[in-house]
C-alpha cells in the first residue's frame, strides 16, 4: 500500500465494463465520466482506527450467552440466547430461581439478564395464550449436530395443531429405519416449543415421550387444538 493514499479502499478500482458501457452508448458523457473517475480515485478516506476494537467486541458478543426467565400461564420459561439467537429454551419451572439455576448449570459463564429481548417474550407469551401459531425468532443452530438438525427441521414442518409419528420424521429425513434415533434427537431438543417436538407422537396414537413430562405435552397439544387419542 502506498503512503499518502487511502488504504481503506480494498478494491482495485471501478468496474471498467460498467463505465465503458455507459460511455460507449453516449460519447457525450466521456469527459464527465473521466472527471468522476478521477474524483473517485482521489477522494481520500482516512484509515479506520477502531477496526480491531470493533472486531473484538463483536466476536466476543457473538460468543456471549445471556440467560433469563419469565413467567407465563404455564410457568417460568427459561431462555438462553446469544447474538445469533436462542440457544436453549427451558420448559416451565415453578419459579424464576428454579429456571435460572437449571440454565446456569448448563451455562455457568452466561450473563443473567433482567429480561429477554422483547420479541422473544412476546412471541412465546402469545403462543402460550393461544394467539400465535408459528414463531419468527432467530435461533442459533450452530451447536446442533447435522442429524439432530435434520430431525428438528423436519419436526418444524408439522403444522400447528397437527401431529406426526416418529417414523414419519424418519422417512422425511431419508432414514426410514431410524425412528429410535429420531426419538432420541427429539428428546434432546434444546429449543422445545419453538421447535415443536411435542407434535411428534407414536404411530399408534399414543403420546410417546416428552422432556418436560407428558402432562406438558398434552397441555401444548390441547392448546393447539390437536386431535388426541387419549
Amino acid at each position, binding site marked *: 500500500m502506498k503512503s499518502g493514499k487511502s488504504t481503506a479502499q480494498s478494491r482495485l478500482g471501478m468496474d471498467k465494463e460498467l463505465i465503458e458501457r*455507459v460511455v460507449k452508448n453516449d460519447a457525450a458523457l466521456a469527459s464527465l465520466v473521466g472527471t468522476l473517475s478521477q474524483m473517485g480515485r482521489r477522494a481520500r478516506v482516512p484509515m479506520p482506527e477502531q477496526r480491531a476494537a470493533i472486531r473484538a467486541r463483536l466476536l466476543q458478543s457473538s460468543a456471549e450467552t445471556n440467560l433469563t426467565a419469565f413467567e407465563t400461564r404455564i410457568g417460568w420459561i427459561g431462555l438462553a440466547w446469544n447474538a*445469533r439467537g436462542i440457544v436453549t429454551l427451558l420448559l416451565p419451572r415453578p419459579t424464576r430461581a428454579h429456571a435460572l439455576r437449571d440454565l446456569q448449570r448448563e451455562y455457568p459463564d452466561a450473563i443473567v439478564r433482567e429480561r429477554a429481548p422483547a420479541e422473544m417474550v412476546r412471541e412465546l407469551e402469545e403462543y402460550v395464550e393461544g394467539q400465535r401459531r408459528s414463531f419468527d425468532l432467530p435461533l442459533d443452530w450452530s451447536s446442533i449436530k447435522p442429524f439432530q438438525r435434520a430431525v428438528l427441521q423436519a419436526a418444524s414442518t408439522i403444522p400447528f395443531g397437527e401431529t406426526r409419528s416418529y417414523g414419519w420424521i424418519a422417512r422425511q429425513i431419508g432414514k426410514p429405519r431410524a425412528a429410535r434415533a429420531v426419538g432420541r434427537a427429539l428428546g434432546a431438543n434444546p429449543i422445545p416449543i419453538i421447535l415443536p417436538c411435542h407434535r411428534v407422537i407414536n404411530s399408534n396414537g399414543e403420546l410417546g415421550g416428552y422432556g418436560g413430562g407428558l402432562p406438558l405435552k398434552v397441555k401444548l397439544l390441547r392448546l393447539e387444538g390437536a386431535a388426541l387419542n387419549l
Partner: protein
Amino acid sequence: MSVATDRGRRGERALLERAQKGAAGFGELFDAYYDRIYAYAYRRVGARVVAEDIAASVFEDALRGIPRVRWQGKPIIAWLYRIAARRVADYYRAARGDVVLDDDVRAADDGLEGIEVAEDYAAVRRALETLGASDREIIRLAFFDELSGAEIAAVLHCTLNNAYVRLHRALKRLKATLEHEERQVHRAVEVGHG
C-alpha cells in the same frame, strides 16, 4: 459468466456459510468487508468517528441477521451496503442537520493539480448535491464506492441492465445540471464585465 466470477461466487457462498457457523467465520467476513463498509459510511457522513460507529452497527446487525440469510447468488457486500444505507439514513434523521464533517472531506481533492481541476471537481460536487437522491446515490456507488455493475444491481434490487440504464440517466442529468451552471457562470461573467 467467467470462470473467475464463478470461483468468486463459490468463495462468497463458502464464506457466508462459515460466517453462519461461528465467531471465527464471522471474523473472516468482517475482515473481508469492514473497510469497504466503513469507506461507504465515511463518504456519506464525512467524519471518521461517525463512520466507524455506523460500520460497527452494520456488522452488529449483520451478526444478528446472518443466521437467516439464504444464499441467492448475490454479493454479500450488497446486503451489507443495504444495511449501511439504512444506518446512514438513521444518522441523518437523528442529526437533523447537525452534522460533523472532517476537514478531509472538503480538502480531499486538493493537491498538485491545477486550479481548473479543483474547480471542475467542485462544480461536479455542487451539481451532485442538486441531483435527486437516487441519481446521486447510483453515481456514488459506481464512481466513489467503486461497486461493480452486479453489486449495484444487488444493492438497488434491480437487474444489471436496469442498473446500466439508471446510471446512464443519472449521468445525463448530472451533465445537464453542470452545463446549466456553466451557462449561468458565463452570463454572470459577461454581465460583470459589461
